[in-house]
């Protein structure tokens, strides 16, 4: 059964959503959908139709497209960061998810398409990103990276690309961190607005992804 996750400020999902909604309307009209799936809240922005259950199967940490990755925007001029995440995540107090060793698994499925700048401002684009979670009630802000490359064997000294070689180069890629692996949220229920930033506000370039809202709920054993 589909669940509708609200996403904010993501104009590139609109076309997809319209298409999917039309399809759903058609399917619903012939009785393919249960009544529950017809309840769609679009008041806060766009809708990305991914069942929370699909996120449970996402292997966090891998670098590549997954079934929950944001769709690549049609517009070739798009430069930015997009993320998808489950709407509701449950945890059992005092128990760790064996797969991640965190109290819950919250995949943040991301996609970016950005220009490669010269000279580089970060070791790499994903290493320059920050994952931000803001508790909607307390406004407390939690920040962490999206990737950890500390285990890397440093590369041999090589000749870097020149400015000319990087002229007109942009890059698009996927990432899927577990929010809790990088952002130390407390093990208590809460509602968080999560987004990803690259660069500092007021600087050029600065990018901020769409914001997703995640409800973390404690459940009984």
């Amino acid at each position, binding site marked *: 059964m589909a669940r509708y996750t609200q996403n904010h400020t993501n104009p590139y999902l609109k076309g997809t959503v319209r298409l999917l909604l039309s399809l759903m309307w058609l399917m619903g009209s012939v009785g393919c959908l249960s009544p529950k799936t017809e309840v769609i809240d679009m008041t806060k922005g766009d809708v990305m139709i991914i069942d929370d259950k699909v996120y449970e199967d996402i*292997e966090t*940490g*891998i*670098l*590549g*497209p997954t079934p929950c990755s944001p769709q690549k925007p049609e517009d*070739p001029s798009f430069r930015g960061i997009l993320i998808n995440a489950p709407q509701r995540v449950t945890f059992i107090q005092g128990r760790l998810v*064996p*797969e*991640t*060793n965190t109290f819950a698994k919250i995949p943040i499925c991301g996609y970016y*398409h950005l220009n*490669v*700048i010269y000279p*580089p*401002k*970060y*070791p*790499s*684009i*994903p*290493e*320059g990103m920050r994952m931000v979670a803001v508790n909607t009630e307390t406004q407390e802000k939690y920040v*962490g*990276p999206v990737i*950890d*490359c*500390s*285990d*890397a*064997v*440093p*590369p*041999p*000294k*090589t*000749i*870097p*690309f020149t400015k000319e*070689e*990087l002229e*007109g*180069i*942009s*890059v*698009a*890629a*996927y990432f899927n961190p577990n929010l809790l692996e*990088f952002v130390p949220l407390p093990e208590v229920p809460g509602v968080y607005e999560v987004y990803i930033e690259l660069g500092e506000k007021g600087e050029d370039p600065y990018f901020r992804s769409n914001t997703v809202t995640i409800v973390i709920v404690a459940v009984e054993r």
Partner: protein
Amino acid sequence: MGGTPGTGSPTREAGGRVQPCAHNCILSVWILNPYPQQGAEVQQFVNLPQGEAYQGHSDEHEDRRGHRIRVRIILRQTIEEARQGNFRFQVRMVPGGSNALYTGQEKNRAHGHYLAQPDNEDWSDPLTISSGNSRVIEDHFSVTAAGGDMFTIQARCVEYRHVVSSIPIRVWRRIWVQEVKMTNVGAARDIIVFRNKFQNGHHLAIRQERAVTMTRMANIGDGRLEKEQFLRNTRRAYDGVRSRFRTRERYVVVIAYTDQLAVKQAGFTVIKDPVAAPGFNTSEAMGHFIDVPITDGTERYLWKGIDDAATDEERFQSWFVSAHFVTGSRRIAIPNSQQNCQPVPDPSFTPVRPDACKKVRVNVARLVPRDTTGRIELVVNVVNRFRGGISYGGGNLICVCTRSWWRSETQLAQNAVLIHEMGHKIGMVPDGNPSRTCDLEHTNALFPNQYRRRGHRGSHCCAGVGPPAAGGEYDGSEAPDCVMFGSSRQNVQDFCPHCTRAVNKVDLSDGWGLFSPSGWSLLQFF
């Protein structure tokens, strides 16, 4: 029952009365069952358990394990021969001047495995020998958990205050390592650097058992299946020799040598825009090559030669996903892609490694009828990074790679990785969280160089490096002073003074649980 006599003749306690030793006094203080010894010191393997169940599985006598010390006080003559009545004496344990200092918090922590500090430095209440010429003192002396700590046990005659000392007792820890080597990989021939580092520097003796082999896997990446397969293979190999360890298994660390530990970035798209493609009739029509650099700020290398590939086609498919020339709304697939998308070996590698490619040369000729401007969209799989090793938290497995960047890791580099991962295995670097299972100081002020994140995962030490440059993350160009820096260097094998203290103090009596074939997801420190 064996024993080691005290050193030298009776001495006068500072400030005590000067008396000739003309009566029946203490001849020596014997450490009971004093083997093994190193030089003139008795070795006390404090992390190993005492008890019958353990007997026979270790070279050390039971008395040389655990924290309890037994001594025998021996007189010159028997009470009966001396005819001077009962002999009264006192005992105490004197810690060495350079022993580890424990914080008040540590002393108060109820652990149960050891006493953080001997509480018996003061002279005991008088004890008596009423017959024979000796008495065994049981359950009175305990040493700390800290490797390298030194203790001497003293006895003195109550009447004349003559003091006799035992030979020194040095605190050691002992663990075993079982190497599991993939077949046909260049695993370190010896790990003497690793062993000496802990043994000589930190009184952590490492016994190395004969290595066993397991099936080779070309690469272990971030994917669940390959990690589980690797763990199953390692466990199968270890289970074959598990009986070697029996009750001491919890003091065994398994070292698995792998081929590569490369992490793949799949579906990495590089767009070059604008690109001019020649029309069919131009002179360049047969070949117009455009170099596409593979980068996202850092140079990315193609996923080439990482997996086992039997044919050129398989080798090509491992890195190539798709290539298009896009102009307006037209999206033209580059035909015959294996010929028209050529990986370019990076010439800066010496010697050149044909699989190390960070550029793809794309032929855009014969795609469009007239000269046209568009863009190349190239989708490839790339290496996100080569990892040096993994320490699986919660279990007793360390993983060391033997190849990265299309070359073999040196023996020294593998040893350096082992030292770093072993550091994590014993709880480095203390981070101020008192709930940690190991007994390390957990006052951040004592570890000013401890850090988390900054581009590294886990708790590390930035001694000699300082805070990262603007941007908040280390970039790999640092020259650290401590092997616990988040990114290992083969020429850095020493712990900094702060970390040294913690490595020495850590209580290893809990040991480690056996790694589980499904435990891939446990914490990974790097």
